[in-house]
């Protein structure tokens, strides 16, 4: 049984579709990378999966005991967040908000969850520090910890390594791999970097003029056409 199924999706804004008839499914424990050029609709696809935007056509279904709002999400940073006066702990625990329903305050289980998430991301030691004073890589780890508070099942990452230096990038990939391998969390990641996608992912979804969906091995075999297009992009960004 698949955790997430996209059926015949057409996506876009104001009835103008940029992606047509896209179908794929993600099983529990998969590591899917979505690659494609700028403007090919990667972020739109992600917004649709999250339910922030309605598809023009088709359906997004969840299964295998996954509820639609159990998806942890690592967004690209917004301007608002860059100078937000909040401590790391406050941000991480806000990931539990979806569990609260109408209950106004967090209970001890949720507080514990936040502590564990911070430990997993290796940010426990600066939990009292201010978010806006952290480096880019540290901020991403804080947001990842928040996503872990929202889910134990599936993570959606929107270009998590954009703008980070190679060392921090490697560290972040390692943390994400660890969640996937050790905790069995399904990962769906948008990426520009095809080389890294092939290295870390188990499945690849390539969108753009040509659409490919399959395992990483099939993707590599299917040949140079996708790869070369992707590689160029990867080097540019």
């Amino acid at each position, binding site marked *: 049984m698949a955790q997430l199924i996209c059926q015949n999706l057409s996506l876009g804004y104001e009835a103008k579709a940029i992606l047509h008839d896209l179908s794929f499914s993600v099983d529990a424990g998969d590591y899917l990378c979505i690659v494609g050029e700028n403007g090919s609709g990667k972020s739109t696809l992600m*917004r649709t999966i*999250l*339910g*922030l935007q309605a598809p023009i056509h088709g359906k997004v279904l969840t299964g295998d005991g996954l509820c639609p*709002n*159990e*998806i*942890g*999400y690592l*967004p690209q940073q*917004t301007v*608002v*967040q860059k100078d*937000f*006066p*909040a*401590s790391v702990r*406050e*941000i991480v625990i*806000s*990931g539990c*908000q*979806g*569990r*609260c329903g109408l209950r*106004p*305050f*967090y209970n001890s289980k949720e507080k514990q969850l936040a502590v564990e998430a911070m430990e997993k991301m290796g940010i426990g030691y600066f939990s*009292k*520090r*201010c978010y*806006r*004073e952290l480096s880019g890589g540290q901020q991403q780890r804080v947001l990842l910890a*928040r*996503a872990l508070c*929202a*889910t134990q099942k599936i993570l959606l990452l929107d270009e998590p390594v954009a703008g980070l230096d190679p060392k921090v990038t490697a560290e972040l990939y390692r943390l994400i791999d660890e969640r996937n391998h050790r905790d069995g969390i399904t990962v769906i990641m948008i990426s520009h970097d095809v080389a890294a996608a092939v290295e870390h992912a188990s499945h690849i979804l390539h969108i753009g003029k040509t659409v490919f969906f399959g395992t990483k091995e099939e993707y590599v075999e299917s040949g140079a056409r996708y790869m070369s297009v992707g590689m160029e992009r990867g080097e540019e960004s």
Partner: protein
Amino acid sequence: MSTILDKFSLYMQYPFVHYALIVGVLIALCSSLLGVTLVLKRFSFIGDGLSHVAFGAMAIAAVLNVTNDMPLILTITVVCAILLLRTGQNTKIKGDATLAMLSVGALAIGYLLMNLFSTSTNLTGDVCTTLFGSTSILTLTQTEVWLCVVLSVVVVSIFILFYNKIFAVTFDENFAQATGTKADLYNLLIAVVVAVIVVLAMNLVGSLLVSALVIFPALLAMRIFKSFKAVTVCSAILSVFCALAGILVSILGGTPVGSTIVAVDIVAFFMACIIGKILGRRGTV
């Protein structure tokens, strides 16, 4: 010095001074609470826009000769706040443009209506007092004080009960929505509460100066503190302190209440800037 104290104790015997202090403190408290959220969501000017709408509403109430104008003003302002936030995103006219249009429009219509239909002999004085705050804080009736107390209690309890949700929605609306928090609903709640605060605060500082009361304490606290809770608490305390100081100075010195409070806020803001700089240089975490 003793004459000032004498004057002060003389004034403190009058109930209207007590009323003014109670209402001033409550309004300052309420307005500062949501200020942090508004500033961070880049909605600083919503307070300003809504206060102009409230001015328009007040003009309509005056024309219709409504004796108790509070409910009417409150309704119109709340409706406008909801409309503003609804149309804030993804529309042809962008949020800030809509806001500018609405606020200037309401101001113009309000003045026009007052000019055409007002029976008052001192029109300029009327308009001036509505815009810049007036002595109305010193002429409050007991009913108005109670209304203000009730509304303030409602605002503060809403804020405390929804504090964590307001934080989540302020920091990252998309994330909150994707993980099952009804972000739209809480945006709506924020809009309604802001509208209530604006209408309340108009009594104190007048409609042109309302946004000062909303944004100054928040900006001030953001200079010094680094967690959301500390910023919120600090802005509430500072706002109340500045309002008290402002009211006392204006009573003793005979200056206009609204602008005195705002002046105290400005002084406090620059002091906070300096304190923030000093703390920053020491590299405090």
